[in-house]
């Protein structure tokens, strides 16, 4: 098998060196890529060959060639769903197609993401497809809302799907910009509920808390930020009632108080400041991996809250 591969590799590289852009060369590259999808030089060569074929100059024939190419890619994508080269080649093919089917591609990438929901190549490709759909659409806001809904579906399927949350974070600002102040707050409140739901499901998941923290940036008024932070502290206290040594909620408690203090000195009571130091001491004992970080946080807080603690 290795011998067969090496022979084929030599054959293709020789054809390429000879600048052969024929059907025969095309077929040879296909056989080689079926064996090894990671040969980016061969993908490059294959694209060069296409560009030299007579059919390329006829829109209908070019369309047919590329549709066949997309079929070929679909056959081999499952061999290595994380191959940069295959996704790039697909992107190239879509950009070359006289009549691309963006909706078809959207359906396809939804299927692939169903197989591997965290595949960033898939998500990147989805954003590429959606951007084209958005460009061609006369209602870009509707496209945004539809994509937002897609992330909601993904999150409802698995609230720990960080790729979906990430994509959502890219869509939310655009969604909000379309709305009145009142409607904005409604959407943000719903968003807080959704992320709190994820947090309740897995309090140890840092990313959910990071998204919650980012929502703070999305809030426009100091009042709204304060409310969000108080809300966060209440949620944490609930977890800690169930499990008092739960690492992530403890870390987030300290971070919440720091954020409140950043927002407005005086928001954090002396009792709460004392609590921060007690929590940091506890964290040093239950999370040996991050003692360096806790030491830095404590030093920072001692400097900041020197008086009266």
């Amino acid at each position, binding site marked *: 098998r290795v011998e067969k591969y090496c022979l084929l590799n030599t054959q293709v590289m020789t054809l390429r060196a000879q600048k052969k852009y024929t059907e025969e060369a095309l077929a040879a590259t296909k056989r080689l890529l079926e064996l090894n999808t990671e040969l980016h030089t061969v993908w490059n060569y294959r694209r060069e060959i296409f560009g030299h074929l007579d059919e390329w100059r006829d829109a209908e024939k070019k369309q047919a060639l590329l549709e066949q190419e997309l079929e070929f890619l679909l056959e081999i994508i499952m061999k290595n769903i994380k191959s*940069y080269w295959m996704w*790039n080649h697909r992107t190239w093919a879509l950009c070359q197609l006289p009549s691309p089917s963006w909706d078809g591609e959207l359906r396809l990438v939804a299927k692939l993401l169903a197989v591997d929901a965290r595949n960033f190549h898939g998500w*990147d490709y989805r954003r590429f497809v959606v951007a084209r759909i958005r460009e061609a659409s006369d209602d870009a806001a509707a496209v945004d809302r539809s994509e937002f809904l897609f992330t909601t579906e993904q999150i409802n399927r698995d609230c720990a799907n*960080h790729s979906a949350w*990430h*994509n959502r974070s890219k869509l939310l600002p655009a969604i909000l910009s379309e709305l009145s102040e009142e409607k904005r707050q409604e959407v943000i409140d719903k968003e807080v509920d959704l992320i709190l739901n994820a947090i309740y499901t897995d309090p140890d998941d840092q990313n959910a808390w990071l*998204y919650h923290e980012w929502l703070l940036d999305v809030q426009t008024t100091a009042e709204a930020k304060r409310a969000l932070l108080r809300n966060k502290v209440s949620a944490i206290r609930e977890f800690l009632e169930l499990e008092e040594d739960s690492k992530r909620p403890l870390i987030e408690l300290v971070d919440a108080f720091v954020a409140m203090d950043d927002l407005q000195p005086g928001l954090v009571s002396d009792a709460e400041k004392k609590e921060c130091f007690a929590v940091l001491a506890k964290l040093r004992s239950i999370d040996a991996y991050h003692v360096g*970080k806790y030491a830095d946080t404590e030093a920072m807080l001692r400097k900041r809250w020197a008086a009266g603690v």
Partner: protein
Amino acid sequence: MYDELGRVDKDKVVGYVRGLQDPVTGEVSGDSWGEKDTRFAFISLAILSFFDSVDSIDVTGVVGYVERSMNYDGGFGSEPGGESHSAQVFTCLAALAIARKLEIVDRERLSRWLAERQLKCGGLNGRPQKLEDVCYSWWVLSSLKILGRVHWVDCERLCGFILSAQDPVAGGIADRPGDMADVYHTCFGIAGLSLAGFEGFDLEQVDPVYCMPVSVVERAGLRGWIDSRPESWKD
């Protein structure tokens, strides 16, 4: 590293790299086929820095491209809109270091995100819920080094993990214990050991932007990025 840069045609190389930047978006391609990725933001700036030609590219454009690739978690993705991934975090931080623009980084959020890449086994992963891999000993640790936060992970446990991924018969380091060793993971494993302060044998100090010995980077006059870090990072 061999001090032989004089043998390279500087103008051709600089010209080639310049030609790969999109003049409108500032984004940098990997080659003529146009794949864009923040990896190339770093690689282009690194190459140009070897020839003292960083300004022959539109640096503001590159920095803008990197900044647009920053995410809600403080991390960086492969492109604007791309999910945070440790390898992209390294390339973006290193690019910003060379461009002298580290101040755009959300140091706190990113440090916290990076610190969580350490798993119970001591190894590091590339993003949440993924497996540990020795190469992240480089991507994550070099990022933390640039941020001045290597001590935010347990370096001893990390070293233990890296060493456990060695091939006890043939030598070399694999991505994780039991797998086949390869040069890529060996390089990044050793670089990780150096950054983690491993004292088991005499390791050269490694520069976290260039993944080369500090002595080489100093000789090439490329350590200036250290002094241009934001003041608050220099504690």
